[in-house]
């Protein structure tokens, strides 16, 4: 059988720093970095990836593959059939320069966080560029790139989210996959304690309200991170039971007000 022809290099990933050579980069760090680059190159979160683990590999059609390593620095030449790979990587570079241009491409954030963390651990910068000497730089990621980006782009605050628990657990940290209205992908939330994880486990495939610390993209108000502090599961119950319970809990105090509508008008204004 004829050997397939070597595909052309689509782009290169260079690890640049003092004493950075291919043999000195731990395989784990390399794997994390190239997987993150692959996610950036593929350029979107497809709904069919929903059932995969967070940050899982894209389908074969969008794969990027390692062609060869140039030892001079640590340059990894990459081939891919994904037609928009270079454009997607260039857009990543644009977002690093101009965070407000992120728009709805929040898939960029996770891989950038990962690449920043790898760059920091290697004391290097990661340069994604077009092939060849003098190839145009598409994106440069340093150890502080994600921190700088998140400082300009993200807002945090307490809130409550409502959704269906679809996953709980994790090998390295407890997480909860929450299916939320108006989002095509699950939101993977941090679960800080075993007791909350167990409680969420009991609510698998049920609707819950989770209160905690949210991270929003400031330009779109899309939630990109959430740390669950408490879990609740309100149930309306029957109307009769609900009215009785609310009256017994203090709601019957309204009976002592002669004209509730006039009282409300006085308190909150005339409608």
């Amino acid at each position, binding site marked *: 059988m004829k050997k397939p022809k070597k595909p052309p290099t689509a782009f290169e990933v260079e690890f640049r720093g003092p004493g950075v050579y291919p043999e000195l980069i731990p395989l784990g760090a390399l794997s994390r970095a190239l997987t993150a680059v692959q996610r950036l190159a593929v350029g979107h979160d497809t709904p069919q990836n929903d059932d995969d683990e967070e940050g899982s590999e894209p389908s074969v059609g969008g794969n990027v593959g390692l062609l060869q390593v140039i030892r001079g620095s640590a340059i990894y030449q990459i081939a891919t059939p994904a037609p928009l790979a270079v454009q997607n990587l260039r857009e990543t570079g644009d977002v690093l320069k101009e965070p407000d241009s992120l728009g709805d491409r929040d898939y960029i954030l996770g891989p950038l966080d990962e690449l920043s963390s790898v760059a920091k651990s290697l004391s290097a910068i990661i340069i994604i560029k077009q092939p060849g000497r003098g190839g145009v730089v598409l994106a440069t990621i340093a150890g502080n790139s994600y921190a700088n980006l998140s400082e300009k782009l993200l807002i945090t605050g307490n809130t*409550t989210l409502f959704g269906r628990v679809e996953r709980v657990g994790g090998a390295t940290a407890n997480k909860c996959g929450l299916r939320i209205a108006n989002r095509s992908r699950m939101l993977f939330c941090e679960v800080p304690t075993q007791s909350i994880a167990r409680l969420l486990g009991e609510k698998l495939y049920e609707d819950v*309200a989770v209160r905690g610390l949210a991270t929003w993209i400031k330009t779109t108000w899309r939630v990109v991170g959430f740390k669950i502090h408490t879990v609740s599961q*309100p149930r309306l119950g029957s109307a009769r039971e609900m009215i009785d*319970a609310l009256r017994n*809990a*203090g709601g019957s105090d309204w009976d002592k007000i002669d004209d509730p*509508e006039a009282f409300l008008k006085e308190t*909150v*204004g005339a409608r």
Partner: protein
Amino acid sequence: MQKRCGWLLDRLADEAHKVFISSIALGEILTGIRRENHGSFVAELQRRFHIAEFDIPASSLAARLWQDIPQNIAKEDRPERRCLHSDVMIVAAAKVATCRQLYTHEPSVRKIAELAGMEAPDLPKGPHRLFPDPATQS
């Protein structure tokens, strides 16, 4: 109106909907309840309703709605300013909490909810069952 609210709750309970109450509206309800009962009332309400909080995204949406009101709701159709303010906050909290429908008998609230992209049906005009629960009919 109390009767119509009862019919609505009856229907929502029967159809097992997720029902939200805005933290702003909750504050209004609490004005008629003695302070010592506030905690137990809120706890009971939380067992049954989702509380739509007026959080940071809701404050941004409320500001946008507030800015859109002059072009969309005639001055004579608007309630008193402080009331309009709380109506805008109620709608924004509901929208951000992903509510699709907001039930109200107030036309101005309905318009604000529609501005926010929600359906805003009126309260039901009658019971949805032939033999309704007497507890909701008072």
